[in-house]
C-alpha cells in the first residue's frame, strides 16, 4: 500500500507542497487585519497569488466577486494534476448544492437568486434555470438527480420550503459519504463535519425556539454523536445542553464557545472555533508524505483563505474595528 501511494502521489504531493508555500502566511494576514482600509488590503494582496485578480478590479468593492473565480481556477489547476480529480468534487459539492437549492427555490417561487460558478454541475445549472422544473432531474448527473427527485417528492407533499434546504443538506452529506468512502481520513473528516454541523443546528434551533419535530428533520445522520442522543439533549436548557456536549471529543471548543456566548450572546466565535478545529485536524496532513491528505489540506486551506479575505475586506469596507475582525478570522493553514 505504501509504495502504491508513493507511485500515485509523488508528483502531485510535490506540487501541492510547492503550491502551499504561496498561501498567505500569518504575517500577511495580520498585516491585512491591521491595514488602514480596504485599498491597503488589496495592496497587500497584489503581491500574492491574488495579484492577477487585484489587477482585474477597479475598486475594493468589486474584489469580492473575483474570489469564486479565483477558487474556480485554483481547482481547475489541482484537477489537472491530481490523480483523484473527483476528490476536488467532494469539496465543491457544497457549491453544487447551493446551486441546486437556488434552482429549486427559483422554480418554486418565481424569484431569482445568484448561482455560484463553481463545482461539477456549474455548467449545467444556468441552462436548467431557463427550463421547466420537470427537466431538472433529467439533465443532471444521476446522483444529483436522485437527490433532487427525493427532495421535490417530499416538498410536493408538505409544501414547506424549509424541506428544500434541509433535505438537500442531508442529500449532500449522503453524496459526500459516497465520495469519501475510499479514505479513512476523509470519512473521519466528514464525521467531524457532521458532528459540528449538528451541534450548530442544535444550538441554533434552541435559540430560535424550534420544535423537536423540526430538529428531527434537520439533524444529519451518520455523525459521531448519534442523532437520538442529540435529540434527547434538546429537552434540556441551553446550559444543560452545553454541559452534555462537553462530554464529547469537542469539549474544549464547546466550553470556549459557551464562554464567549455568555459574554456577547453571539455564536460567531464558536463557529470560528469549529472551522479552526477542522483545519487543525487537517493540519496533521502536513506530516503525511504521500497520499490525498496533503491535497485535502491544501483545498481546505484555500477555502478558508477566501473566507478570510472576504471577512477582512467586508470588515474594512464597513469600518469594523480590527479587533472584531480578528475574532472572526479563521486560523491559516501555513
Amino acid at each position, binding site marked *: 500500500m505504501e*509504495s502504491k501511494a*508513493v*507511485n500515485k502521489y*509523488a*508528483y*502531485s*504531493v*510535490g*506540487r*501541492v*507542497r*510547492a*503550491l*502551499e*508555500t*504561496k498561501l498567505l502566511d500569518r504575517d500577511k494576514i495580520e498585516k491585512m487585519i491591521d491595514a488602514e482600509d480596504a485599498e491597503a488590503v488589496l495592496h497587500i494582496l497584489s503581491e500574492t497569488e491574488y495579484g492577477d485578480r487585484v489587477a482585474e478590479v477597479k475598486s475594493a468593492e468589486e474584489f469580492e466577486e473575483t474570489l469564486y473565480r479565483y477558487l474556480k481556477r485554483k481547482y481547475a489547476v489541482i484537477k489537472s*494534476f491530481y490523480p483523484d480529480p473527483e476528490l476536488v468534487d467532494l469539496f465543491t459539492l457544497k457549491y453544487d448544492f447551493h446551486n441546486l437549492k437556488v434552482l429549486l427555490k427559483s422554480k418554486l417561487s418565481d424569484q431569482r437568486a445568484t448561482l455560484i460558478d463553481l463545482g461539477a454541475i456549474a455548467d449545467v445549472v444556468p441552462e436548467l434555470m431557463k427550463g421547466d422544473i420537470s427537466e431538472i432531474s433529467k439533465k443532471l448527473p444521476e446522483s444529483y438527480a436522485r437527490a433532487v427527485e427525493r427532495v421535490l417528492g417530499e416538498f410536493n407533499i408538505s409544501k414547506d420550503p424549509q424541506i428544500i434546504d434541509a433535505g438537500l443538506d442531508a442529500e449532500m452529506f449522503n453524496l459526500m459519504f459516497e465520495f469519501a468512502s475510499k479514505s479513512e481520513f476523509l470519512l473521519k473528516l466528514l464525521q467531524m463535519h457532521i458532528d459540528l454541523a449538528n451541534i450548530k443546528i442544535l444550538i441554533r434551533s434552541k435559540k430560535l425556539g424550534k420544535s423537536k419535530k423540526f430538529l428531527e428533520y434537520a439533524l444529519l445522520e451518520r455523525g459521531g454523536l448519534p442523532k437520538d442522543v442529540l435529540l434527547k439533549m434538546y429537552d434540556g436548557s441551553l446550559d444543560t445542553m452545553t454541559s452534555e456536549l462537553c462530554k464529547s471529543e469537542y469539549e474544549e471548543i464547546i466550553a470556549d464557545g459557551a464562554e464567549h456566548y455568555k459574554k456577547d450572546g453571539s455564536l460567531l466565535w464558536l463557529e470560528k472555533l469549529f472551522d479552526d478545529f477542522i483545519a487543525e485536524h487537517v493540519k496533521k496532513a502536513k506530516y503525511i*508524505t*504521500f497520499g490525498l491528505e496533503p491535497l485535502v489540506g491544501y483545498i481546505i486551506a484555500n477555502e478558508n483563505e477566501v473566507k478570510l479575505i472576504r471577512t477582512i475586506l467586508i470588515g474594512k469596507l464597513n469600518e469594523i474595528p480590527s479587533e472584531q475582525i480578528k475574532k472572526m478570522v479563521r486560523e491559516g493553514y501555513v
Partner: protein
Amino acid sequence: MVEIGLGLALATLGAALAVALPGTGSAIGTRIVGQAGAGVATESPEKFGMILLLQALPGTQGIYGLLTGFIVIMGTGLLSGLQPVGAEQGLAILFACLPVAIAGGLSAPAQGMVAAAGVSLIAKRPEEVGKAIIFAAMVETFAVFGLLASILLLNGVL
C-alpha cells in the same frame, strides 16, 4: 582454458545480484524523488539544483552494487582469463555479495521516500536543504554498511 564450473557460476550469480538489486532499488528511489521533484519544479523551477541533489542520493546504492560486482569480476578473472573457482568458494562469493545486494536493494527505495519527503521540505523551506540531505543520508549509512561487509567478505574468500 579453465572450464566454467559450478563455483564460477555461483560467483557470477553473486556479482549479478550485487549489481541488479541495488540498481533496481536505486532506479525506484530516484524515480520517487524525481516525481516529487517534478511536482515542486512545476511551481518553483528555481529549486531544481537542490532537488537534483536529493534525487542523486538514492542513486548511490546502484554504484555500490556495481563496485561489488566489479570486485567479483576482477577476483574471478572474468575479464582477464578465468581463475579456477571451487564450488564452495563460489558459494562463499555468492553469500559475500548478499549484504550489498539486499541492503542496497531495499535501502534505495526507502531512501527515495525520505528524499522525496525532503523535497517537500525544501519546497517550503529551501534554506533547510542541508537537513533534508542529512535525513536521506541516514538511510545511506546502512547501504554503506552492506557495501563494507561485502567488500570485507570478498576480501576473505577471493
